[in-house]
């Protein structure tokens, strides 16, 4: 068991009160697993990813804990997290294209970063050159400025840089989003290659693009409005999704080979609820074609098949014993003690 997140809740502090962007999230990422995290914009996927490595000033942890190989990570304590960053957990940030300092050459950026973690540049230089060659770049990039590189090249440099110290967990946030299809493919394949060579042990890759995840991910986790909707292996999510939201997302995805004359795709009507004042019960209920009276209660994130977790009354079967309902304003930490998450772990 590599990474275990238990009942994690992260809120943004706003003038109007706390806005709970990640609400009682529990999951496990195994060794060697690439887990895809998908959902609409504003569903909390980036917040979840960044909270595992660095909470910024606006964010605060309401509840839960994160275990890395059984050891708890002090995620709400920036100073205590410092030795873990880059070594244990590393991040390829969203907009990695602009993550590089424009006034420094690539080698200097890397040396600075390594210096922050008390690693000598010369001690990893050889391995770094090998990896730069692996991602299809020449050593020359080290003496270039970021603006001299194309988007795909920058993305690869960032990937090498983030994984230089062989972290246990890599969080890759929208690493393929701004790229052309051929470059997307190259970066996606590099991610798998890095995992296969154990440069990284586990990966959480965050994207809104399910078709990319179908290529690179072993498991896919779908988030909706701050909560987990479904998690299963990639094949089950793609071909046998249980949550109505997952089904609707997949149904709205145009694929090569689908034409409007033959197959009319449909979007999902409505918008996700505001996280500042989330509705009671299942948050997808307002847009859900299967919504029933039971959906006024929060469904548990239950295991309906081995490794297949779904938070939906319909998928779970209505005979599942009702879990004590979580109050609507579940954001306050004290009200969270009721297990909104019921999961069977192996």
């Amino acid at each position, binding site marked *: 068991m590599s990474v275990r997140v238990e009942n994690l809740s992260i809120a943004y502090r706003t003038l109007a009160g706390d806005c709970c962007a990640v609400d009682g999230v529990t999951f496990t990422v195994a060794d060697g697993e690439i887990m895809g995290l998908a959902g*609409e*914009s504003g569903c909390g996927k980036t917040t979840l990813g960044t909270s595992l490595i660095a909470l910024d000033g606006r964010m605060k942890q309401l509840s839960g804990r994160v275990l890395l190989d059984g050891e708890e990570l002090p995620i709400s304590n920036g100073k205590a997290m410092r030795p873990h960053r880059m070594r244990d957990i590393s991040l390829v940030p969203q907009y990695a294209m602009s993550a590089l300092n424009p006034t420094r050459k690539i080698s200097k950026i890397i040396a600075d970063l390594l210096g922050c973690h008390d690693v000598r540049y010369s001690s990893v230089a050889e391995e770094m050159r090998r990896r730069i060659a*692996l*991602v*299809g770049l020449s050593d020359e990039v080290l003496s270039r400025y970021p603006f001299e590189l*194309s*988007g*795909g*090249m920058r993305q690869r440099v960032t990937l090498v840089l983030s994984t230089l110290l062989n972290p246990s967990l890599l969080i890759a946030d929208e690493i393929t989003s701004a790229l*052309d*299809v*051929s*470059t*997307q*493919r*190259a970066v*996606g*394949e*590099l991610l798998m*290659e890095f995992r296969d060579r154990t440069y990284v042990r586990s990966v959480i890759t965050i994207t*809104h*693009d*399910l*078709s*990319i995840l*179908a*290529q690179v991910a072993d498991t896919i986790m779908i988030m909706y409005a701050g909560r987990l909707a479904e998690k299963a292996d990639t094949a089950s999510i*793609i*071909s046998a999704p249980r949550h109505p939201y997952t089904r*609707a*997302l*997949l149904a*709205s*995805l*145009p*694929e*090569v*080979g*689908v*034409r*409007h004359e033959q197959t*009319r*795709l*449909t*979007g*999902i009507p409505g*918008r996700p609820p505001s996280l500042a004042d989330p509705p009671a019960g299942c948050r997808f209920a307002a847009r859900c074609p299967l919504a029933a009276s039971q959906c006024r209660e929060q469904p548990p994130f239950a295991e309906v098949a081995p490794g297949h977790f779904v938070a939906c009354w319909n998928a779970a079967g209505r005979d599942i014993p009702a879990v004590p309902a979580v109050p609507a304003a579940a954001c306050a930490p004290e009200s969270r003690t009721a297990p909104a998450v019921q999961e069977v772990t192996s």
Partner: protein
Amino acid sequence: MSTLRLDKVSKLFRAADADGGTLPALRQVSFGINPGEVVTLIGESGSGKTTLGKIVLRLITASSGQVLFDGKDIAAFGRAELHEYYRYVQGVFQDPYSSYNPVYKADRVFELLREEYFPKIAQGAWEARIDAALEAVALNPGEVLDRYPHQLSGGQQQRLLIARALLLDVKLLIADEIISMLDASTRVDVLNLLVGLKQAGLAVLFITHDLSLGHYISDRTVILRHGAIAEMGPTVQVFGNPQHPYTRMLLESVPQLHRRWSPRSAGLEAPAAAGEQAAAGSRPPARPRHRPPARQPRRGRPNPMLEPPPLTECEPGHLVAAAELEAASPR
């Protein structure tokens, strides 16, 4: 008759370096769009697809070649004619957020249009037109009028901009990456909207880098590469029977739900090179080595590298360019 006809449109940008070189962004691109037809322009970044859209909207002018709208050359339009031109041709762009002035309410775009094009229309008639246009894009007037841009979702903003175009007597819509900023759940609604408008007789130039979107919506597809047409023809034929190695490489790279990327023998080489060599290997090149369209040292002379690879017809209406066996450009 075609609504729009492009005839050997080229665009040279002056490169930023000191030697005064030029960068050919478009090389003799010719195609047409008929009423009630969606033509998808597919290309990767730097292929010149946005430049082409801007030329059609006359935001920039072509270096050579003609853009004919209803048989008239748009480059010759004076101020008044251009004003009329925009009554028929409108653009919608990638980022809806930046198309609005955040200080004003979103429906101000309608009011500006009224001042410019319909100064004499009565208030009641105008409101009826707005309601009709909003209905055409499946928006509820009560939900979107009298709101600020930040109060609307991306999909609503984008549809409001399409409604704005519909208020005019628009015949041609330039849709430049209008889907890419939208969430998966609202994307398809905007696409279906374009299908509906097309069935009502609107011609659409749909510019995208996403092949699956292009395939879903369009009647004809133009694949642009380094500013020149690599392949074009009816969408079903281009996607079903791709002839150009570049098209095949693009199609192989598209991530799909039910099909994994086929394993590539070429390991981790630069993607364009790998895909292209693999694909080109099975087909003898129709033309010997053709240098990539690089910068030209001198200006004002005829530019041989502007000459695009010649197109040949492999099926009725399906044109393919001779494969340019170039070294992959650094990416």
